Every structure is written in C-alpha cells, then in structure tokens.
C-alpha cells in the first residue's frame, strides 16, 4: 500500500471568473496520468491525490473551501489560482492554519500587499509565482514606444483589487509612466460592471489620448470600446489587461477586436517545457485543443506549472509529512517549468517568484485571430512573432 | 314542469379536511328565483361558491342543463352563463367603477344588460363612473358588484347576501328592481338573512343547517315554525 499525499486545489469553476478555471479538469487529468506511478521522496513512493474545490468566483466561498480542505481533508499542500478573489482568501486560511500553500495567476502586488504583506516580515507558509506590475508596465511602455504615437495615455482602472493595484500611485502605472515621459489621464476608479464610460471618453478626447490602457473585465471593456466608437474616440493603441486574455472575448468584439493589445503570460510559442512530462508549450496547447475542441488559453500553462512545483517540492522535501519541511522545500525551489524558471530565492519579496512576461497584439493574418508576441523586452528568450500595427 | 337549469346532486364540499356541505340536493328551474336561508356558517356561501366554480367538486354533483360542471373552473362556469355576486362585494380596486362594470361584460354574452341599463338601475354609479372603486361607500360598492354580474347577461345569477350593509332605501330599490332583473328569463338564487324579504321575492326556498338541506318548500306556503325548526334543528 503506497501512502498518499493530499493536494488541495481551489479555483473558480463557476461564476464570472469561470474562464480561468476552464482548463482545470484537463490539466488535473494530465497530471494524474503523468504521476500515476507516484512521486519518489527519500526512497519512498507517495501517491498524490488532487482535491479540487470550486470557489464559485466568490471570495467568501474560496475562504470556506480552503478551510475545509485544510481542516476536513487535511491536505498536505494547498494550491489555488486565478485573481486575488481566489488566491488571497486561500492563502490567508493557509497562513493562519500553518498549511504550505502555493498560488499563481494573480500579479504579485495585489497578492502580497493586498494581504497586508510586509517585505521585512514575509509570510511563513504561503508562496506565489506570477509576474508583477513592473513587468506589465515595462512591456506596455515598450509596446507603445514601438508604435511611435503621441505619449498620452488614457487609463481605465476599476475599483477592484487589480484595478487599484495597476492604478496605484506608488506601485502601479502612474509613477513609471511619468518617468518614461508618458502623460497619464486617469479620471479615477470606476465600479466594475459599469454601464457608461462617457466621462472617460470625454476626458481622453479632451486630453488627446492616443493610447488607452487599463485592466478590465470583458463586459466593461466591451461597453467602453463600443461607446468609444459611437462617440468618435479613435485611439491608435489599446492595451488592456485581463479583458483580452481569452480568444473568445476578443472574437466577440468582431472586427473591432483586431489590433487590440494585451499582456501575454504564456503562449504555445513560449520556449519552455514541462518538468514532469517533457511536453513543450505547443504540445500542451494542442493537447488541450484536441481534448476539448477549444482554443488554447493562457492559464493552461500556469495550471500545469503549479503542479510541476508541487511535484518538485514533494520530491525534495526532507519529510513530506512535516509542513515546515514542505515549506522549506518550496522556499528552495529552482525549477524550470512550463512557464519559465520558478525560484523563490530571486523574487522581489520572499514569498514571490516571478515568471517572464511579454506583450502582443491580436492580429488576423488569415481568417483566424491570433495573439502575436510583439514585445519581449523583459524576456528575450521568448521569440517575437510579428510587429505592432496601429489601430487606425 | 320544465327541466331544471341547475341541479345539485348530493353535493359535498370541503375546505381541506373540513367538510362544509353534506349531500346537498337542490334545483333551480328556468327563470325561477330561489332563496337559500340558514344560520351563520350553515354553508350558504360555500354552496354559492361551489356552483360558481370557486370550489372544485365532483363533476356530476352539479348539473347545468344536464351537463356535469362540478369540476369546471370558475371562468368556465362563468362562460356558461352563471354569474355570482360574491359576499363582501370584492370589487377590483385598480379598475374604475366603469371598468369594473365593463369587465363583468367581457365574456361578450348577448342580452338585455349593458352599461346604460346598469346606470339606469343605479344612477349614482354613473356619477362616480371614473372614480376608483375602493373609494365608494359600502352600499355603492354593492351596486357595482350587482351591476358587474348583470353585465355578463347571465342565465343564472347567484347573489350572496346582497342587502348586507345597504341602507333600507337601497335594499328597497334592489328588491324593487329584482323582478325587472329576473323578468327576462334570468334565474336567480339569493342568500338573504331577512327571511320575510327572502320569501316575498322568491318562488321556492331551501334552508341549510350545518351543511345539510333541512327544509325545502314553496316560499308562499312554508310557515315560520317550519323555518325556525329548520334553522336550528329544534
């Protein structure tokens, strides 16, 4: 009888964030298959059981299932993914209960500072890997420099965890943009699910913005983009976080979706491969499309990488049954994964490891939309696939 | 003797577990006015509601011109030409007085009754036609309720305690009008507490006691004694 380790996994499978959880079943199935023979630790083989729980896109529910996983299922490692609404409540429960916890898929500032983190006194049990605002800013500005348009940027930041972080005077866009010679028009934070962006469009028109940026949910961007068209506002570059991640969201915009730009955290063209299966990014993406008939999405790589880290940690832990030993193994991770190298020793703060970020544009070379990488200032190892084209 | 238009055969009626009528057998002939009397809670209202279809019964227990109607819904019964003036008036508050009357006629059955004739019968209603029906006094509301039932040009009109709350002058008016109302071949069943009045305007009378028929007779021949026995079972 091989002993079993339990891995808890919390993500939004239903509710407005369900897009982020769409690939979960596919990834978990793949991992289960790959690790069917168990994981070897100190000469002993351990089976792993991944227990998946749905946060229903609701932070209350996320906290609840996280605590259930900890207390009832007594998981050995807790993992979670997708936006601060899931990662933060999950990590908070783990921290209080002393359960090793790995999360991903949320820029690190809203994760770390959003939880009241203090770089001097890091969290003890909770670790995170993803990119940060400095990366997205570097990529976006590089993108805009390429475009050679007037350096006036309209900002659309909602009053949610992402929007507040991106728009934050200290951590977010305003400072670096000013340093790099961009003028930011930031009318203020709007409430998510906004029905009317006229006041923003007015301000952008008045200020002569040629670039628009922000971090939005798809319905909000859809409303803004339609109203911009109706009210005669024609920016040359529109670079929006979150809303343009999923191909379906961009396809929905029809012809007006072509030419929009966005951050790219993962793509089939990334030159990485799995530490478990040896698959390339392309193979993973193709596998997903073959299994589900759906186009690849960016979270796929990160979900896979999450379990790569888990696998690696279990292999290396001095004592897999001791939470502190597991945490020590997490802390000392240095693993090349599907999303790049994950190493907490090199992070901006002790609990965070950064992954490479690039940016690109939705283009339509043939009759199908493609996300083309046009900037790789931050991660030259990721190849550029084309050049930026202006909107109008 | 003509066939009855309405006959009740061993009609039972219940509210949940509580049985209110036990095997009531009765009939109404064409153009005939029948009185139902009985003490409080004897089941008079229940009887009227059963006929009108507001309480579901065994199909065969109520026959309308020979057809079983016990199981029909109230709207289906209304379409057959049976109208009820419910106890307590029950007008439609969000309809004006006139609309309350019009909706009574919305089945579109042909006959002598229309808005004009109702206003002739109750002139005060014409004055108040555009007012909300709730703002009428109790008596005025009763007039609307009667008018509303008449507007459907029914063949049988059921009137439950129509004189309740009316000033004597109006009661007089209504009873004076009754022959005119039923004169054109309309049959009527009236529930009335004023026994003398009930007997004076009807051809036959049924007395209910605790859900059973305790007396049946011709209005002009029943005696006071028989009635008080039938009322209280003494």
């Amino acid at each position, binding site marked *: 009888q091989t002993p079993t380790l339990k891995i808890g996994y919390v993500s939004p499978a239903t509710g407005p964030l369900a897009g982020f959880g769409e690939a979960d079943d596919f990834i978990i199935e793949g991992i289960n298959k790959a690790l069917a023979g168990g994981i070897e630790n100190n000469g002993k083989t351990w089976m792993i059981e991944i227990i998946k729980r749905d946060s229903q896109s*609701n932070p209350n529910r996320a906290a609840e299932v996280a605590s259930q996983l900890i207390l*009832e299922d007594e998981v050995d490692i807790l993992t979670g993914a997708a936006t*601060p609404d899931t990662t933060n409540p999950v990590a908070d429960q783990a921290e209080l209960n002393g359960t090793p916890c790995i999360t991903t898929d949320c820029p690190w500032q809203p994760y770390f500072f959003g939880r009241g983190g203090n770089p001097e006194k890091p969290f003890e049990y909770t670790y995170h890997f993803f990119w940060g605002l400095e990366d997205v800013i570097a990529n976006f500005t590089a993108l805009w420099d390429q475009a050679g348009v007037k350096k006036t940027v309209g900002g659309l930041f909602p*009053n949610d965890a992402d929007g507040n972080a991106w728009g934050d005077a200290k951590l977010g866009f305003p400072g670096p943009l000013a340093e790099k010679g961009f003028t930011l028009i930031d009318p203020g934070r709007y409430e998510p699910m906004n029905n009317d962006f006229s006041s923003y469009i007015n301000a952008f028109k008045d200020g002569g913005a040629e670039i628009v940026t922000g971090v939005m949910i798809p319905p909000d961007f859809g409303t803004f983009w339609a109203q911009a068209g109706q009210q005669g506002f024609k920016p040359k570059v529109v670079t929006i976080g979150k809303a343009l991640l999923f191909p379906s969201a961009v396809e929905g915009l029809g012809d007006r979706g072509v030419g929009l730009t966005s951050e790219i955290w993962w793509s089939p063209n990334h030159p990485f491969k799995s530490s478990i299966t040896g698959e390339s990014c392309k193979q993973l993406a193709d596998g997903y499309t073959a299994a589900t008939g759906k186009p690849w999405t960016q979270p796929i790589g990160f979900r896979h990488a999450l379990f790569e880290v888990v696998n690696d940690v279990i292999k290396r832990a001095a004592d897999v049954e001791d939470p502190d030993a597991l945490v020590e193994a997490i802390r000392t991770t240095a693993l090349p994964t599907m999303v790049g190298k994950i190493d907490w020793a090199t992070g901006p703060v002790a609990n965070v490891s950064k992954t490479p970020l690039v940016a690109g544009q939705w283009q339509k070379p043939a009759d199908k939309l493609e996300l083309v990488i046009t900037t790789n200032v931050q991660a030259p190892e990721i190849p550029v696939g084309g050049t930026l084209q202006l909107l109008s | 003797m003509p066939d009855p238009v309405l006959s009740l055969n061993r009609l039972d009626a219940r509210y949940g577990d509580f049985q209110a009528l036990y095997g009531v057998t009765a009939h109404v002939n064409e153009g005939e006015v029948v009185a139902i009397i009985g003490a409080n809670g004897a089941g008079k209202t229940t009887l009227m509601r059963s006929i009108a279809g507001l309480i579901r019964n065994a199909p065969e227990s109520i026959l309308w011109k020979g057809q079983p109607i016990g199981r029909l819904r109230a709207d289906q019964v209304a379409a057959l030409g049976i109208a009820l003036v419910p106890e307590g008036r029950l007008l439609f508050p969000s309809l004006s007085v006139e609309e309350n009357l019009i909706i009574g006629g919305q089945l579109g059955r042909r006959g002598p009754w229309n808005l004009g004739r109702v206003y002739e019968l109750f002139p005060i209603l014409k004055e108040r036609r555009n007012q909300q029906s709730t703002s009428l006094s109790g008596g005025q509301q009763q007039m609307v309720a009667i008018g509303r039932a008449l507007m459907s040009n029914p063949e049988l009109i059921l009137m439950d305690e129509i004189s309740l709350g009316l000033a004597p002058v109006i009661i007089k008016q209504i009873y004076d009008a009754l022959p005119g109302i039923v004169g054109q071949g309309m049959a009527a069943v009236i529930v009335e507490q004023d026994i003398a009045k009930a007997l004076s305007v009807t051809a036959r009378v049924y007395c209910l006691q605790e859900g059973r028929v305790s007396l049946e007779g011709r209005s002009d021949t029943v005696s006071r004694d028989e009635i008080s026995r039938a009322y209280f079972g003494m």
Partner: protein
Amino acid sequence: MRVTRSSSISKAAMAVGLVVLLVLVAAPWWASRADLRLMGEIYLYVSLATLWNLLAGYAGLVSVGQQAYVGFGGYGFFALAMLAGVPVLVALPLAAVAGALVAVPVAMLIFRLRGAYFAIGTWVVAEVFRLVAAQTPALGGGSGASLPADIVKSLADSRDLREAMAYWLALGVMVLTVGTVFLILRSRRGLALTAIRDNELAARSLGIDIWRTKFFVYVVTAGLTSLVGGLIFLQKLRISPDAAFSANDWTAFVIFIVVIGGIGTLEGPIIGTLLFFALRETMAEMGTIYLIALGVVAIGVMLKAPTGLWGLIRARTGAELFPLSRRVQGIGRPEG
C-alpha cells in the same frame, strides 16, 4: 378554561434542546477541527436566518438588504481590530452597537416604503453601503483587506483553544439571537409584531404604535446581524466589498433557508439551515450541478410545500417546539 403556552411536545423539546446545547458546548472535546468549523458556520447561518425570519416572517419587513449589516459588522470589526487595535472580544460587540446605530437613520428612510418597495429599498441601501466601503481606502477600498494573523492569534495562544473560542463565540451568538428572538416573540411586542404583519390598519386602530414596534425590531436585528457579520469575517480572515455585501451569500441563501424551512416559525430557520448545509456538504463540488440542484429545491419546495418543511410537519402533527402560541383549553371541541 385556561390559556396555555406550552404543550407536552414543547416541554419535551425544551428539555431535549437543553441537553443538545450542553453537548454542543462540549464539542471542542469531541469534535474534529473541521467539524467545529463547520458547526460554527452553521450556527452563524442559523443566526442570520433567525434574524431575517424575525424581520420578514414576523414583522412583515421583507428586507433583501440584510447583507448591509453583515458587511457593516464585518468592516466595523476589521476597522476596530485592525486600525484601532481594539481586542477581538471587545471589537465584536462594538461592531454590533455600531450596526444598531447606523440602522437608526436607515430605518427612518426606508420605513416610508411598503412591501416590494421596501424590499428594493433595502437592497439599494446595501448597495450604497457596499459602494461606500469600496471608497474607503483605509480598509482596502475595492481591493479588500486581510486580517493580520496576529489579531486572530491574540484570541488565544494555542491553536486548539483559538479554534474552540471561535466555535464558542459562534455558538454563543446563535443562542443569543435565537433566545432574543424567542423572548421578543413571547412578549407583548411580539404579539404586536404579528398583528402588524397581518393587518396594519387594524393594528394601528388597536393601539399599536406601528413605527416604533417595527423600528425596535429593525434596529435590534441590525445590531445582531452586525455581530454575526463581525464573527463571519473573523472566520473568513479576509474582507472585500463584494464579499462583505454579497446579496447572494448573506441574503439570498438566507431567504432560501428561511422559506424552505418555514417562514414565521422559530423552528423553520433551523431546519432550513440544516437542509442547506446538507445539500452543500454533499453536492457543492459538483459545481454547476449543485447550484442547479439548489434552484430546483427552491422551486420544488415552493410548489409542494409553500409553508416550508416545518409548515408541512406542523400541519401534519400540530407540533410546536418553541412554546409561542397560546391555546385556550377547556372550550369543548378542540379546533384549529
């Protein structure tokens, strides 16, 4: 002839209830950590449901905005504990008092509304609360805030004791709310409340000061709901406007619980909560299917047992666990 308020069933129920309560108080010695936490959550939902039932089922105040007070209590507690450094056990009752105080001006405004208007009005007020919380940077604004682990750890040194404390707090709050509601209902005021629910015109004409009676109930409910809210977010550790003022979590599910269990009875909210958690514990991992099942149960119960499960049981057996109703004995045939 005499008037009695308790039946043999209710006497037995009270005795059994007392024993059960003792067993529950001892739970930290016999239950697992997970069970403690789950039971704590159940108690908090029983409290919310009981309070909403007092409002809607007895006072006729169908509020769909009670999340305003859950959220207010949560934020109040976070503000006191995090920003002002007030000890947890003091911050919680203070949050309750604050909740009762803000309910005063809110009541003055929304008591002008009736029926469905009142319902929507309470919802809008809760939205206003949410938006205001989202505009309060000190508490994280739209991003939310996490309760520093130190604050929770200050509750008790050892983890076991801390978890037991959290459990007892929840149990205590449940006993407090159910007890308070029971006492209100048994009092003259409770009678007045039911009268108002049934017919305001008559209630007014029989000497009941409608506004004051409702006001009292609304404010008490708001205070206790805030207390529950504070405790909820002590457990959740993290607060954000959407989570704190979630209409689904703190009102829709609560309405579901009360109506399914049996509105206008004290037993209903308890039965409803148990059913709700039974469903959740067995099905929640089925994702969409679970939620669809929840919807189907709501519709099914409303079609088959519109008075709720307890209503159904009571209609069959006439049972009443809490001695509330008054029966006149010795009037011949027993009826009703």
